[in-house]
């Protein structure tokens, strides 16, 4: 089925087409969300939210980009919003812990030492990287994360981010430099 036809059928509320779209793009959305959230359950919930949004807002989609790009854009926006709301919750948890009611901030950043076990080591690295990514500005973070996503070209990233290819290149370069700096400082302190 051609993309324009798919969009037309989606706009008419065709259930079979919607099911086909879910089947075709769900893995892509799940893995993209996972790159941002680093948590499988949250990524699965977010994937569900993304397709609900696709179903509800397809009527406003003007087909000026590929359907997959539009779906990616929704996934990225929702992932960033999710991360922001998590941050807010953590900030609140910090406040609660300051006032001595709870000490549930255990999972905020990082391990103090590198664990000897290989798997733990990888988990630690992933957590440290997540912490460093969290400190980047949103656009750098999105560009870097998408660039690490399977075979996504700069052109596709620029289309998702609604910016030029040269901006994407520069954002990725800056993201890498900033990440290296942050990681360097972290390991200097903790090694």
């Amino acid at each position, binding site marked *: 089925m051609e993309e324009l036809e798919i969009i037309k059928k989606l706009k008419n509320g065709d259930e079979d087409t919607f099911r086909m779209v879910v089947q075709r793009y769900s893995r892509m959305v*799940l893995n993209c969300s996972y790159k941002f959230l680093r948590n499988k359950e949250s990524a*699965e919930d977010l994937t569900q939210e993304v397709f609900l949004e696709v179903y509800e807002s397809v009527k406003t989609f003007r087909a000026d980009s590929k359907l997959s790009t539009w779906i990616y854009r929704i996934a990225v926006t929702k992932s960033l919003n999710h991360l922001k709301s998590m941050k807010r919750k953590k900030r609140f948890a910090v406040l609660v812990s300051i006032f001595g009611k709870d000490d549930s901030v255990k999972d905020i950043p990082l391990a103090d030492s*590198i664990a000897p076990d290989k798997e733990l080591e990888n988990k630690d690295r992933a957590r440290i990287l997540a912490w460093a990514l969290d400190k980047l500005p949103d656009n750098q973070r999105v560009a870097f994360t998408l660039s690490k996503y399977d075979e996504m070209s700069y052109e596709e990233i620029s289309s998702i981010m609604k910016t030029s290819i040269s901006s994407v290149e520069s954002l990725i370069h800056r993201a890498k430099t900033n990440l290296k700096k942050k990681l360097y400082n972290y390991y200097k302190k903790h090694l």
Partner: protein
Amino acid sequence: MKNLKENQILGEVEKTLLSFDNDSVLEENPFLYTRIKAEKDIRNSRSKKNFALRFGFSQALVLLILLINIVTVVYYYERNAKQNMQDKLVLELRHDFQIEQSQSSF
């Protein structure tokens, strides 16, 4: 010694950056569509309920406003009628007892 630590740090930085590439590909939940459909149905029924509630509330509000208007109009006319009767009575009394305007405290 200092160089060794520097190299260790740089090595860790590289390994950490590479850890992003080592993610395994997640498999989608086979029941995803069913979950989405169930959620869609819940939202639909919720929005229908909300619509019914909003419709009922707006109807009740319109009725209340109409009622307030009717009560106000009735009250206004009754008060006017009372006032007219009082004025008429005063005039009649004035006429019966031949009281001048200046002598009256009404």
